[in-house]
């Protein structure tokens, strides 16, 4: 039979102990307003009066969040011992309802799902992060990992862009936390500036061309809207990044999260299980249907 080119590497330990389709009861402990349409939700389970993360996630992994009576959807998770962080953009029925809730709300959460970024493979390398809009959510889980394991990596460089200064997410990280980290360059751009904005104005791909990041010993982690990804890939190629060293995450409609419901397939792989993290080299072996 035909050789399987994508190697399913989903981490299973946490999910196996329970029925993987049934959510765990948890509480929203804190809600951070990022922008007019993005909020970050901290989600924890309460045990003997202490709040801890419902489960731990590796960078790039996913969590299915459900609001009883409304629905459930998959979000990219950022790990912490005390809670799980999900940054959610208001785009439809469930996310509208989530934007209305207050801390203390009971929610259901299941996961972790997906492969996550193979962080061990990046040891000793420079890492270039490129994010657009809400795409900074999955990137942030990797950035936090790299900052926590700072000595394992070389130079860090983040290039991030949003539509306007008001649409920048994680401003506290972009302007305070990350620039203070050793050898961590943070470059931010916006499509349209305003009176206060002193930074770069322009689209992410053009900004990358201007910054000319060095591909030498560098892995590029790229997440954002499809149009940004499309133009950015062309530029990365010109700069000399090889498809093996360009890593991205994909979004498909998801229901089960465990490779059973069939919903999220691209060819013979399931994004919820074999992804959402893929190298550009892997994507090139898959049908162009996402």
């Amino acid at each position, binding site marked *: 039979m035909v050789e399987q080119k994508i190697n399913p590497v989903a981490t299973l330990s946490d999910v196996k102990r329970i029925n993987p389709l049934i959510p765990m009861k948890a509480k929203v402990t804190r809600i951070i307003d990022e922008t007019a349409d993005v909020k970050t939700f901290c989600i924890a389970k309460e045990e003997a009066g202490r709040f801890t993360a419902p489960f731990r996630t590796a960078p790039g992994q996913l969590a299915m969040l459900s609001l009883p009576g409304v629905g459930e959807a998959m979000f990219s998770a950022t790990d912490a011992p005390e809670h799980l962080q999900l940054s959610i953009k208001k785009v439809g029925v469930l996310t509208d309802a989530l934007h209305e809730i207050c801390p203390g709300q009971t929610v259901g959460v299941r996961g972790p799902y997906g492969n996550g970024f193979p962080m061990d493979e990046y040891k000793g390398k420079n890492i270039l992060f490129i994010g657009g809009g809400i795409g900074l959510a999955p990137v942030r889980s990797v950035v936090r990992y790299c900052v926590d394991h700072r000595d394992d990596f070389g130079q860090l460089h983040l290039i991030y862009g949003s539509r306007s200064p008001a649409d920048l997410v994680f401003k506290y990280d972009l302007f305070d936390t990350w620039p203070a980290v050793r050898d961590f360059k943070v470059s931010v751009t916006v499509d349209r500036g305003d009176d206060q904005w002193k930074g770069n104005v322009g689209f992410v791909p053009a900004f990358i061309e201007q910054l000319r990041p060095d591909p030498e010993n560098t892995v590029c982690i790229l997440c954002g809207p499809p149009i940004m990804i499309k133009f950015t890939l062309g530029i990365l190629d010109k700069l000399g990044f090889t498809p093996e060293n360009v890593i991205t995450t994909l979004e498909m409609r998801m229901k089960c999260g465990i490779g059973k419901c069939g919903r999220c397939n691209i060819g013979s792989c399931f994004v919820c299980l074999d992804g959402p993290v893929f190298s550009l080299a892997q994507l090139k072996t898959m*049908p162009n249907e996402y």
Partner: protein
Amino acid sequence: MQRLKAFPKAKLTAVLEMMIQKATVWVPSMIAGVSRFAPYRPGTDIQMGTNTAISPKEALFPSTEKIYKFSAYGIDGDFEPVDPSVGPQILFGLRSCDMQGILCLDDVFLTRGYVDDFYGSKREATTLITLGCVTPGADCFCASMGVNPAEHDASDAQMYDLGDAYGIIARSVKGEALVKDLMAAGLLSDTDKSQGPTADFVLKVDSEGITEKLQQMFDHPLWDELSRKCLNCGTCAYLCPTCHCFDIAEKKRNQHCGVKIKCWDTCMFSEYALMAGGHNPRPSKKERVRQRFMHKLRYFPERYGKLQCTGCGRCIAKCPVNLEITDVIKLAGEAKSDG
């Protein structure tokens, strides 16, 4: 070597009456004008002669199934699991194609790190009794898909059609227990007969190399042509013994509580892959029809090492516009690859 045991066809109801003492016995039957597997009750209109119009997958993977209950009171709420298990059950008179279909479902629901308990618990509680086919139906083509119509070695017990009797032989511990019960009830006797050869198939197709061929055909114009007449009605998928796609949806009982259900779904529906914001990776019939056949004949073999069409012929029998998988295999086989 076990000797073949047999019971006269006239004793079929006696055999089933005995089996229902210990288990729910799904038999091929006619229920309100629909041919399907259903739990046997005295008086059930049993149809052993031909395979059912609806596949037996519903015994293991019901069309709709509760997965948990939820409640929501303001900021409070709760989730309460539903026990997925069923009592012991027997799938009686399963044809080889449908046995093969269950092996496909096993791959999906029981392997690759996760077990779907809703399927797994039913599968474990089930004894599978296959029945050899001697006269294939007009739409059947299992032999073309690598399935042996005469018997299937993955079942717990195999029955053979001996003309006026059914032969039965156990293949597993579960099967042995069952045969032992039938022996104890005095329903079986030794036989020297064996099942005759399976008659020639009317429908044949050469599926050799189809997976490799389709690997070269993602962008082929064939899909435009083929998909033109499809209605995206989903009949094919709902009848298919191997289609495993499901939706997870909510059914509210009132403002405060409801159940979450797992229910059959199909890639033939336009909303299937539709995302918030309106992006749809499979926006037209062409992509959806391509997905169905690619999944059966290329993606599934790539992932699990077996074809996901077992040649049961149900989609051929019931497709309103005669979009037949055998034609697809034939046309793809003859087409020039697009490289």
